[in-house]
Structures are given as structure tokens and as C-alpha cells.
């Protein structure tokens, strides 16, 4: 049995309560959501907060809704709820496709979208999805609420712009009528983190790609996205040749490390291969829409 260092537990009752506790406790405290990243790290003593502030009792942090032309997902919404959400699926099947390959059903029952974003693991699938869709993070602190584009949300691996005393409350994604989206992932085994993943959306209109987004996880792309590849595609016809050129460009925006999941050449190859496969499917979906 792996045993964490001594730790205190506090249960927050509201967003304001969570913020005031975290602010009072300072750097030695951490919010806990599903706990599927934080608690293993505590057991390995890689993380040793003195207090964990539990966000699970805050109902307002949970839920999925449409607001204006945005999809809004509460930070404490579980992977399982994202997976089964009809609203998200209607606009962006990429959510369901990504969730299908995140961890396993047990982890998905408790693990949250907010925890995934804040953990900012280089292989985080929802971070790739969020960057592809150019979503925004809503962050609350004692000074009020601020919004940060997800493409500016990360300060490097496992680091985000969230400050001590702040919590992530919501994620917002713009709705794009006619968009097609898809997610591709190679993992060594079901439930494993990706070796490389690619998630994309495209809007095809009048025979050209009017807008697109490409997100990648596990290959150290800056903010999990591939803006140069997107630029190559925008305004172009969705031909196989153009998709291939964009996929290759995306691979160049990846900076993978060799590890037991695979060597650099393989991961770079996957960045291209998976982006191409995702683009093909997203284009077909958008054209069919």
C-alpha cells in the first residue's frame, strides 16, 4: 500500500468558500476534484499538500449547458458526463471520441474535466481537445473572475496560469455551425495515456476550409496545438494533398521526447498520421453536415 504524507482535508461548500479557504491556506493547499491525478501523486509523495480542499460538494461547478453561442462545461463535470453528453456530441463529436479513450470507466466516473485541464499533463486528452476548439477557461479568485483562452492557459508541463487562491470554474467552447470534428489516439493499451493524439475540427463551406483547429497531446506541442498547420489549411480546399501537407506541418510543431511509449521518429510520424486521419473524418463530417 502506498501511503501519502500527513494531510488535512477540508470540504468546500461553495465557490466562494473554496476560494477563501485556498487563499487562507496558501501554497500548501490544493483543490481536489476527482483525485485521480492528485491522490496518486500524493501516495508517491511527489505532491504533499498540507491540506486538500474538496470541490466535490459544489453543485454549481457541475453541468453542461448552451449559453449564447458557447458550450459551457462546469469544471467539476466528470469525464463520464462529458462522454455521455448529447449536447456536446451534437456540436462536437470530438468530446465523445476523446472521452472514450481517456483512462477507464472507473476513472471516468470521478475524474473531472477541470482536474484534467488543471493537471495539464502533457498527454491530457481534454487539453488537446480544448486547444483544438479554442475554448476559454473561466477562473475565479477573491478579486473576481477572469477568462483565459485555452491556448494561453498553460505555463509548461503540469503548470497553468491559475494562481494560489484561484480555481477553474468553467470551460467555454464556441459553437460553430457545420463543424466536423474527430479525435485520434494511439495508446499502448486501453486505459493508458496516449503515445500521441490528435483532435481536430474543421468547417468546410463553399468548397474550402473556412476555419479549423488542430490539437495534439503527448508530443509537447506548445499549448497542445498546431497553429502553422491550421494556417496552411484555412481557406484551402480539403483535398487529400492539402490535408497531408497540414498533417506534416503539425508533426513539425510536435516536440516529442523518447520514452517507453516510443521513440521520437515514431511519435512524430504519429502526429502526422493521426492528424491526417482526424482531418479526413472531420472534413467528411463537415461536408455531410
Amino acid at each position, binding site marked *: *500500500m*502506498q*501511503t501519502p*504524507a*500527513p494531510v488535512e482535508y477540508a470540504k468546500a461548500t461553495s465557490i466562494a468558500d473554496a476560494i477563501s479557504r485556498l487563499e487562507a491556506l496558501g501554497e500548501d493547499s490544493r483543490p481536489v476534484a476527482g483525485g485521480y491525478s492528485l491522490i496518486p501523486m500524493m501516495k508517491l*509523495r511527489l505532491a504533499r499538500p498540507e491540506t486538500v480542499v474538496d470541490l466535490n460538494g459544489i453543485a454549481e461547478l457541475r453541468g453542461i449547458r448552451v449559453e449564447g453561442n458557447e458550450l459551457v462545461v462546469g469544471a467539476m463535470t466528470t469525464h463520464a458526463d462529458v462522454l455521455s453528453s448529447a449536447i456536446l456530441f451534437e456540436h462536437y463529436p470530438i468530446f465523445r471520441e476523446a472521452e472514450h479513450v481517456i483512462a*477507464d470507466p472507473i476513472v471516468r466516473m470521478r475524474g473531472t474535466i477541470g482536474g484534467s485541464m488543471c493537471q495539464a499533463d502533457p498527454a491530457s486528452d481534454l487539453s488537446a481537445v480544448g486547444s483544438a476548439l479554442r475554448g476559454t477557461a473561466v477562473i475565479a479568485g477573491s478579486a473576481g473572475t477572469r477568462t483565459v483562452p485555452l491556448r494561453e492557459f498553460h505555463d509548461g508541463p503540469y503548470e497553468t496560469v491559475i494562481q494560489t487562491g484561484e480555481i477553474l470554474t468553467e470551460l467555454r467552447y464556441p459553437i460553430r455551425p457545420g463543424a466536423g470534428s474527430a479525435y485520434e489516439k*494511439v495508446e*499502448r*493499451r*486501453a*486505459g*493508458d*495515456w496516449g*503515445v500521441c493524439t490528435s483532435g481536430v475540427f474543421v468547417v468546410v463551406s463553399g468548397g474550402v476550409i473556412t476555419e479549423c483547429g488542430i490539437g495534439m497531446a503527448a508530443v509537447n506541442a506548445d499549448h497542445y496545438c498546431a497553429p502553422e498547420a491550421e494556417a496552411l489549411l484555412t481557406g484551402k480546399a480539403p483535398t487529400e494533398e492539402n490535408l497531408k501537407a497540414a498533417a506534416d506541418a503539425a508533426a513539425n510543431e510536435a516536440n516529442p521526447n*523518447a*520514452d*517507453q*511509449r*516510443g*521513440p521520437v521518429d*515514431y*511519435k512524430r*510520424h*504519429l502526429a502526422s*498520421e*493521426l492528424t491526417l*486521419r482526424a482531418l479526413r473524418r472531420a472534413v467528411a463530417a463537415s461536408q455531410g453536415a
Partner: protein
Amino acid sequence: MTAVEEVPTSAAGNPIGFGRMVRKEDVRFVRGEGNYVDDVNLPGMLHGAILRSPFAHAKINSIDTSAALELPGVVAVVTGKDLEGLGLAWMPTLSYDTQAVLATDKVRFQGQEVAFVIAESRYIARDALELIDVDYDPLPVVADAKKALDPGAPIIRDDKEGKTDNIVYEKWEAGDEAVTDAAFAGADVVVTQEILYPRVHPSPMETCGSVAHMDPVTGKLILWTTTQAPHAHRTVYALVAGLPEHKIQVISPDVGGGFGNKVPIYPGYVLSIVGSIVAKRPVKWMEDRSENLMSTGFARDYHMTTSIASTKEGKILGVKVDVLADHGAFNGVAQPTNYPAGFFSIFSGSYDYPAAYCKVKAVYTNKAPGGVAYACSFRITEAVYAIERIVDCLAQELKMDPAELRLKNLLRPEQFPYKSPTGWEYDSGEYEKTMKVAMEMVGYDELRKEQAEKRAKGEYMGIGISFFTEGVGAGPRKHMDILGLGMADGCDLRVHPTGKAQVRLSVQTQGQGHETTFAQIVSHELGIPPEDIEVIHGDTDNTPFGLGTYGSRSTPVSGAAAALVARKVRDRARIVAAAALECAPDDLEWELGRWFVKGDPERGKTIQEIAMAAHGSLELPEGVEGHLDAQVVYNPPDLTYPYGCYICVVDVDPGTGQVKVRRFVAVDDCGTRINPMIVEGQVHGGLADGVGMALMELIAFDEDGNNLGGSFMDYLLPTSMECPDWELGETVTPSPHHPIGAKGVGESATVGSPAAVVNAVIDAIAPFGVRHADMPLTPANVWRAIQGNPIRTDMAVE
């Protein structure tokens, strides 16, 4: 004897004898009411935790335990120096090497035991580990077995007087080299392939641990421990620690999987004993998952340069294997003394050819010790993998269908008992029949057609065959022992007055279903319903001596003992029945559960009636003592030889390297099937193991000796998502020398299946010019193999 004889059914609906029945032990397991070592809690019990080395090779300058000792709740901190004073800093391994209990001079692998904290709670013990200050001087590391013998390589075992190299043993050979060379010289075709069986880990669900209770009043040590061999462990503790053997009781309660991981004695067990002596209170030590993966018995790490010679028509003429074996920092393998490479020399496999030769060289490296584990039948896993892989390489070279090549060379029924070129005597088999059953089940010819059609469309499927022969049930005392303890098993049977029985076994189940299988064996012999037979095991005070459960030996050895002890009871029952029926024993005839008078079937006594009479006042013939209890020791005349044919079908995505196991057909011949459902369960588990090893399981090391498989995020076990619906078949060729014809099946699937999966993947990507890639065939490795550059898997991926 056939697979499932028609047998009568008991009142509880169980077969009286052999047949399917729900496992007796499952009731407590499925309710979560098992009793494992970690469930043992004694009054006043303390908790131990081990400080482990972060370095693979480092000199220890000093260890400062003062801050740890000041932590409230810490009772004691033990270091190697303290143990030196007790003469316990080093312990013998099961292969006549030594292993540090706690490091004194230096650490030799990452995760090695350095200090032991004893505290009031598990949490305090763990907190105290962080307060121990060890001053290390890192030393150069040998992580790559191929560099262990380089000139100038650091000497790992400088604790051994005069040791100037990293050799465990220089050369162990089997077969005839000259005859084999001659066969190769005359061959049309010779194929050589370097084949690595990488390091894997048995990773049982329950990690290792123990609770030691040295009673200061009685001087008796009771040790609850995760062991597959309670009796052998007891004797070793007596020999090592000088404790009197009659005052040691080893209890192996429910064990959550062993797979060979729980055969060795680990420093943690010894430390819990030392702790309970020092603290005069019971001490529990339970390792966590990473400790289990990083420090306890691993498996394989065999670099096998394998060559095969044949005629151009595909008649195999000979096979040679040159092995470099990586044993880690201490030679901690557990196998019969005369077999330093286990039963690897059975590598000639299931084929008929006269010439085979292997030589094995074993080296020390800065890696965890172990080597024989993970359901390998003493390295037959490695042997089967080498021969089945090289046969496929030959098929590719000859452009011959691998099924056809195998059929051309399989041993024929009339050749049994068959003396193999390396000296094994296979007891029985109808190999071709078994292979044809498997080919029929899988629809081999149609699959080959489908494959051709797919290839034309640029889709890649593969079909892989593995035909394996195992030798299990070690073993005849004359040439098989572990640390001088012969491998015969005792068995006691008591039949109580009401006809209910208790059978006491020396072997210990870790999930194999002994409580059911052994009840069925006794039931088969005596006609007592299996629900009326209690199987008692895992407690040295209450069971006869024997060497334990590993190497698929429980049914071949203890199963035979159980049958024979029941027959002994049956013979005694005959005398009692004769007295009761007032006739001569010779006038009686046996039918299941009853002796009756020949020619007068109405006149008879059931075994239950006889049991009561045996304990009653019935007058018995002169010299007959009464009661129905009996005991035996079974010394097997030879090994039994289960075999089988496995066929795997995979689909490979060449763009990503991902492999999907589409189908898996496994036809096993393990002789008589006592409980076919349990046999199938064993095969299911082993096939999952095989898929795991072939595709994902791995403990690799980087050049600094860091263990890269030390958690379940890094050490991947297969899930149901990677396993197809297993398609099982059977043939039944009973062992001619086993009392009930059973051959053992605990490891067959683990031994036989990896080669089938790998052969299937290589078959799928053969059009890219691939002949071999080492396990595990991860997506990266498969993709790289397609690029002509497969990954070297024993070291860190670069």
C-alpha cells in the same frame, strides 16, 4: 480414461469425481471474505517499512537513522550493520548464491533494501523512511547484460572473495555439440536469429508481505507469509536463522496470485522476523506495488541466439541456442539444483530431429534479482518461445506455410515415450491430432485465403502458430531438489466417523483452485462427495512436508499423492468392510463409494458406513488398527508432458503499428481433466499473460540502471479490451505414469501463447520484409519493425 467420464452427482449437485463444478473457494473470494496476509492483525502488532536504494550501484558511506528514531511512534530502525552483528546481513538464495538482507557495503540494484523501520503504524513507518539519511557514492552501472563481461566493467559482486568478473556461471550445456555441428554442416538451409525474451514481472494482484510473531514466552515463531512453498520456507528459515525447525510455523493464508513471484524468500520476510525478535511484538511488512515490481522475482531476461538447420524440403535437422542469461545482482532463481538454466534444455520442442545443443552463460547486472517466475515451468517459456520463433523464421526462409512445416516435423504417436536429443523423456502425445483440431477450429485454410485477399488491398492480418511441449511436475528426488530438499510431496487423508474427509496437502493454492480439484481427486477415488472433503493447506503445522506450488507441479505431484492416499484408504476400507460383511477382503469388489460382495451386489458397505465401522466397536482382524486415516509421500517417477497447439489471428495497422488480437484458438492436452472449468480458467489466465508479454509487459532499464517498469502506469498488464473471446479445445492423452493420468496445466498457456501472438504479428508484417522483432510488440516497436529498425527492448527506448 476420457476427458469427462459420466459420473454420478452428489446431493449438492457436484460431480462425485471429475467434472465441472463451481470452485469451493469462490464463495469467500467473490464475497471479499478471503483472508490474506494483510488481513492478519494481531494485538500489539507493529508495522515495518523498507528504505530502498534510489541508485542501481553505489557505495554506502554512512547511514544516519537518528532523526527517524526521534519520530514519535518509531520503535526501531534496523540497518545492515545491525544485522551483521546478528550474522543476518546476508542470506542464501535458493540457488546457492547469497543476497543482502540489508545492504552493508554497497547497493547493487535500484530498489535494494537498505534499512528497515519498525513503527506503531504503517504511515509512521513510511514517514520515518524519509528521515533516514544515507550517504551514497554512485558507482558505474552495468545495466546492459551484453556489457557485463566487457573488460573494465565494474565488478558487482565484490562481496565474494576473489570475484573479478560478473559471471554467475560460465557455461551450462545440454545436447551434443559435435552431432549438432555435423547436422548443421550437412544442411541445405541454416537460419540464425537473435531472440530476446525480455524481463517481465509476474505482478500478482497481492504483493508480498509477512506477519512475524515470535512468541517470547514459548519461543515459537509463527510467520504468516505470502509463499508458494511454506514447507521449503520453514526449512530455509531454520537453516539460515538457526531457529529450531519444530518451533517455526509458516502459514500461507489466502494468496492473491503467485506465478513464481512468491517462491523466493525476500529480505522483507526476514526483516519482519528480525523485527519481531527485536521488538518482542508481532511485526507486519507489506510491500507496495512499486516495491513488488522493482525488487521481487522478475522473469526471463534471456538473450537467445537461435539457429535452425533443415533440408530444403523443410525437414528439420538440428537446433542450436546460445544464451546470455541476465540474473540481476544476486542469483535468486528458484529451480532444481542440477538445472541452473531451469528446464531450458527442453528447447528442441515438439519436433523429430536428432541434433540439438544449447549453452548458457549467466551474468550479474545491476538489476533486481530473480529469474524464474511468471508461470514459466522453469524456463520452458523461454525454450518454447525460441523454438517456435525460429521455426517460423525457417518457414519464412523456405517460403513454406508454417503449419505445413510443423506438421512435417511433429513427433509421431508411435515415438512415445520419446527420448529427446537433450535427454528428456516425453511421456505421451498425439501431436498431429491436436494440431489438426486447432487448425480446424480456427479455419486455417480460409484464414490464409482471407489474408491473401487482404494483402492485395493493403490490409495486414497475420496468423501465428505455436506448438509447445512442457515438462512439469518436478520432480524425481533422484535428480531434482531445491537447496538439497527433494521434490517429493506428502499427503494425509483423514476420513472421520461420519464419512466426511480432510485431505492435507503440502502444496498451496494461489488461485489455482486446489480446494476444489483435490477434493475431486479424493472424491474420484473414494466416492465421497467433494463438498464433504475439506482441503487443508498452507500451514506447516497442519500439513505434511512437500515443496510447494510452482512449475505446474501441484497436480502432477501432489495430485498423484492425493489419489494414492485415497487408494490407501480404500484398501483399508476394504478390510473393514470385509470384517463388517463377514467375508474375506478378496471377495469384495469396488464401485464408486462402496465395497460389495462379488456376485452379490446387494451386500455391501458404503464408504460412509465403513468409516463409522472403522471408528466403532466392530471387531477387526488381528493387526488391523482401526480408523481410516492414511498418509503417503509421492516421489514422481518422471515429469509429465502437457502440450498444445495455439493459433492466434491479429490485425495490424501499419500506419500506427497497433495490433488487434482478433482470435485465439488454444487446444490443450493436459491429460485427464479433473475439473474442466478450472482447466479452462487456468488457460484463460495464461493466454491473457501471453498477450500481455507479447504486446506490452516489460521491465526495461536505462543505462543508469533505473527501473522503467516500476508501477502499473509503466508496467502494462493486459485488460479485457486486449483479449479476444478465447476459443478453447482439447485432446486428452493421459500421462501413462501418473495415477490419474493428469499432466498439469497451470502454466501451459503462459508458456505456449507468447510465440503464437508474436508469430502472428510478424506474419502480418512479413510483406514489409520483417522476419523478427523482440517482445513487447508495442505500436512503436511494430511500426519501427516495418521501417526495418525494430526497438531494442531490454534497454530504455531511445
